[in-house]
């Protein structure tokens, strides 16, 4: 019976020459295995193998972008499926749509950069193997269309990350790694029960065999409302820890600060999105009614996160910790946008996920570079770096401004859309959140001023500037920052149909709920009443 046979069935929807989605998961996993078999004492060979693997994966991810059918952005594309545990109706079903597409691409792009940018220093073989395994897990999460496969990947990601933080981290790494693992594991413990309960209740209600198929369960909406709310709560807890949402965020600063640079980049860039992506795909889509019911809670927590993250970031003395807390604020924006439950909000949140991955990833790289040169991250001990390292300072400025949300750079687009969405839905939340934007400018500019301006003394005066390799690593991120700030249309037009369909799905399944749209005019088109949420919406390709 079931086996992980290479019999993945290609969906008819797309003309792909090979099963690209399984490859996205399998190639890094096989790469990890390959790296684990290479001789331990050849770091350059190990690095070559690891980078090659991740570049291949990145290439496939980018190729996915071109193969993606923009006209059918709301549809799941490249779908492939293989039975795994027949008894329980679990199968490896993978697919992308406009919501997951850019997260997959982001993952594909960030991993080679993280691999290239930093050398582990010791135990190279295990380091590269774990990173590649991590990539496989993350890809699995973003691509999974089967609840159980999603959970598997969601959980398995913890193990490589635990070892990356614990073995190659700084300072209090054992504590940070353990805290990270336990928080997320405890968070997702109940999600497994939730998934099982959902599948069984669905099977009971529909009368069919047990299935964990996301689309089947979400489209049927057969589970009664009370049960759905409980199950949503179990899911939400797991995602809220992963995001992390305000009161559950305490693992994040520790994990980010103690992680090695590559770990921080991946953690901030990709791993935090597992939670926000989960909210979209497995929260809103699976439980529209419950999401709507609980939305005020998450809106409140999102706003609290924005303000709290910003205030605490301001107080930090450690540059890396400051960036970590800025993540709490940024993710607050994403949560706010998601639970605004309208097209602008969700789209902004989605865009912000990508932006945050690029900007904060780049920020962590830069902080890592500073640390590598000065062996300290204490803001007090740094100063006047602008003189000794002008290029580094320049790059830092651009990235920082993108993180603040300066118009013309990528951060602005996402934040603006989120605020518009939130304003249309719940005006006061948006007003408070906008205050968070100002705070972001405060802490980042202040930190920049303290680190790069002023007189340079001691080692600060002689700090070497950006090397060519580092510049090359940062270049693609800078290009993305500018490109997405100036011309976000190609991104948005691929996201929009899927987001519209999602909003329509929520509208359809929640009694008396209509998408909250602008009260001032009709510059933004209201959500359209598609019946099944997965019907077509070709007319939305070029709204922007």
């Amino acid at each position, binding site marked *: *019976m*079931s*086996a*992980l046979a290479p019999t993945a069935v290609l969906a008819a929807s797309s003309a792909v020459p090979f099963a690209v989605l399984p490859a996205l998961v399998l190639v890094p996993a096989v790469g990890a295995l390959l790296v684990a078999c290479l001789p331990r004492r050849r770091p350059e060979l190990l690095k070559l193998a690891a980078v090659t693997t991740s570049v291949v994966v990145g290439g496939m991810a980018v190729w996915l972008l071109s193969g993606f059918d923009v006209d059918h952005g709301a549809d799941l594309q490249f779908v492939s499926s293989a039975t*795994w*545990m*027949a*008894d*329980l109706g679990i199968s490896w079903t993978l697919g992308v749509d406009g919501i997951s597409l850019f997260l997959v691409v982001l993952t594909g792009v960030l991993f080679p950069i993280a691999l290239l940018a930093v050398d582990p220093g010791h135990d190279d073989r295990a380091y590269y193997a774990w990173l590649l395994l991590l990539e496989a897990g993350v890809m699995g999460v973003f691509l999974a269309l089967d609840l*159980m496969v999603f*959970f*598997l*990947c969601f*959980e*398995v990601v*913890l*193990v490589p990350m*635990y*070892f990356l933080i*614990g*073995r190659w981290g700084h300072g209090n*790494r*054992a504590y940070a*790694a*353990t805290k990270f*693992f*336990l928080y997320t*594991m*405890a968070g997702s*413990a*109940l999600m*497994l*029960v939730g998934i*099982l*309960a959902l599948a*069984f209740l669905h099977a009971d209600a529909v009368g069919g065999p047990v299935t964990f198929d996301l689309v089947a369960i979400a489209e049927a909406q057969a589970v009664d409302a009370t049960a759905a709310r409980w199950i949503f709560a*179990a899911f939400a807890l797991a995602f809220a820890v992963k995001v992390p949402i305000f009161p559950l965020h305490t693992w994040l600063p520790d994990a980010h600060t103690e992680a090695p640079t590559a770990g921080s980049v991946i953690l901030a860039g990709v791993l935090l999105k597992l939670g926000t992506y989960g909210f979209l795909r497995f929260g809103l889509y699976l439980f529209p009614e419950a999401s709507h019911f609980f939305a005020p809670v998450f809106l409140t927590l999102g706003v609290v996160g924005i303000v709290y993250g910003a205030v605490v970031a301001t107080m930090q003395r450690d540059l890396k910790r400051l960036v970590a807390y800025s993540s709490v604020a940024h993710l607050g924006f994403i949560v706010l946008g998601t639970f605004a439950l309208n097209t602008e909000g969700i789209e902004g949140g989605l865009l912000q996920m990508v932006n945050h991955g690029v900007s904060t990833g780049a920020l962590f790289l830069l902080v890592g570079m500073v640390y590598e040169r000065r062996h300290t991250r204490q803001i007090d001990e740094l100063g006047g770096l602008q003189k000794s390292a002008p290029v580094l300072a320049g790059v830092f400025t651009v990235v920082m401004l993108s993180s603040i949300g300066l118009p013309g750079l990528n951060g602005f687009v996402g934040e603006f859309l989120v605020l518009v969405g939130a304003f249309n839905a719940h005006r006061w939340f948006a007003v408070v959140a906008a205050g968070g934007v100002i705070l972001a400018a405060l802490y980042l500019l202040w930190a920049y001023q303290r680190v790069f301006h002023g007189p340079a003394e001691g080692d600060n005066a002689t700090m070497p500037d950006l090397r060519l390799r580092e510049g090359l690593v940062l270049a693609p991120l800078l290009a993305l920052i500018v490109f997405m700030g100036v011309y976000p249309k190609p991104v948005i037009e691929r996201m929009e149909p899927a987001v519209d369909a999602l909003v329509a799905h929520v509208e359809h399944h929640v009694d008396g709920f209509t998408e909250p749209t602008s009260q001032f005019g009709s510059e933004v088109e209201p959500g359209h009443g598609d019946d099944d949420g997965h019907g077509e919406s070709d007319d939305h390709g070029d709204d922007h």
Partner: protein
Amino acid sequence: MLAVATPEVLWWALLPVLFLSVGGLLLLTVASLVRRLPDWLPQAWTVVTGLAVLVACVPMWCEVRDEGPRTTLAGSVAVDGSTVLVTAVLAAVVVAVALLARPYLRREDLPGVEVYVLLMLSAAGGVVMASADDLIVLFLGLEILSIAVYVLAALHLRRIESQEGAMKYFVLGAFASAFLLYGMALVYGATGSTRLALVAEHLSATVLVDDSMLLAGIALLLVGLAFKVAAVPFHAWTPDVYQGSPTPVVAWMAAGVKAAGFAAMVRVLVTSLGTHASDWAPPVGVLAVASVLVGAVVAVLQTDVRRMLAYSSVAHAGFLLLGVQAADADGTAAVYAYLVVYALLATGSFAVLTVMGGDGDAAHHLDDYRGLARRRPVLAGAFTLLLLGQAGVPFTGGFVAKLGVLAAAVADRGYWVAGLAMLGAAAAAFVYLRILVSMYLEDPDAEAADGSTGPAVPLGARVVIGVACAGVLFVGLVPGPLLDLARDAVPVLVGS
């Protein structure tokens, strides 16, 4: 003249018991008569016997699958998938323990042959227990299994903990046996038979006006069996015994005794007393949750790795009970799958502990594992895999096992039980993480760091650890075959 009908005997079905008991007795005789036996001989003999049982299981499995389950010896022994599967597990564990035992005995300078003999006899008892279709036979198997294990626990002559643990195990075990026996008597009183099939027949055919005797009997049976499988609150002996006994023997206790105990429990409770599931399932659910929570939380407080694993085995027993309390075929199948996976995990883990124990079997403190990753990367890696498996991380057998019992519980609407058990699992993860932290994240002591390469890993231990790791990974990635096996093994009642 008293005329007694002699029962029919299916000899092929008794082959495993015969192999194990005759093998054990032969070895004992030879060792008694021959003054100086080379120390590889008893080991090789035990391994061969275990493998012979494994081989014998294959045609038995096919026979049972094709021709259906049946009973023999006047309906007192069941010949079905459950019997064969558990027999195979027990035989495999016997082989593994025998492989671990020789280097251990040599290192600890202990006399040799008794371990193997007792191991085989204990396994014979386990097979009888797993195949018992009659309460008396069940008790017989349980006693053969237990008494041998009591002696095995005391085998390390020079460690006072070994004696202490064995004493506790013996006293409490005798106590539990008494409970079990009393429970059997009450069940007999209530139903008029000790044969499981007849008990079930009686219970489904008649409505008891006053079922208090039956309920008391079930409760006492439950107490006796819960003691054997180390479920809270009958787990008090576990940490002391696991800490004191020779480590290879602990592997047998964790993997073998537990498997036999659960096989018996499933047969008695689910198969025979299934009509009264509404009476016994809730208490079993409580035991399950208590075991998982207590096992996980108390394990966190330990600093001795063997005690940690002892408490984690209590937590595993809780998960297994989760499958039992579902009281249906799905739950039972999940229990069997769990047993197989746990046998792999426990044998592998205690194999690592055997190696790590060092001279005197004493180096089991968490600090002794510091920096193991640097000294013995492969051993540390294997232990990591096994611990992650125990934690139930995806793509290891541990996850498949936990998923099965959880699914059975949830399908049964046991949301609370399942939820609490999962929280316990998350707490248990901390236990395994502590060991990982020690191995990977802490630097070895100055003393250990200079040039010491850590303990030597004997060939036998390599084989055991390797097979266990491969099995855990295989089940994690391709769970289909195991789940099929487990489903086929679910016992059904065969009428008289």
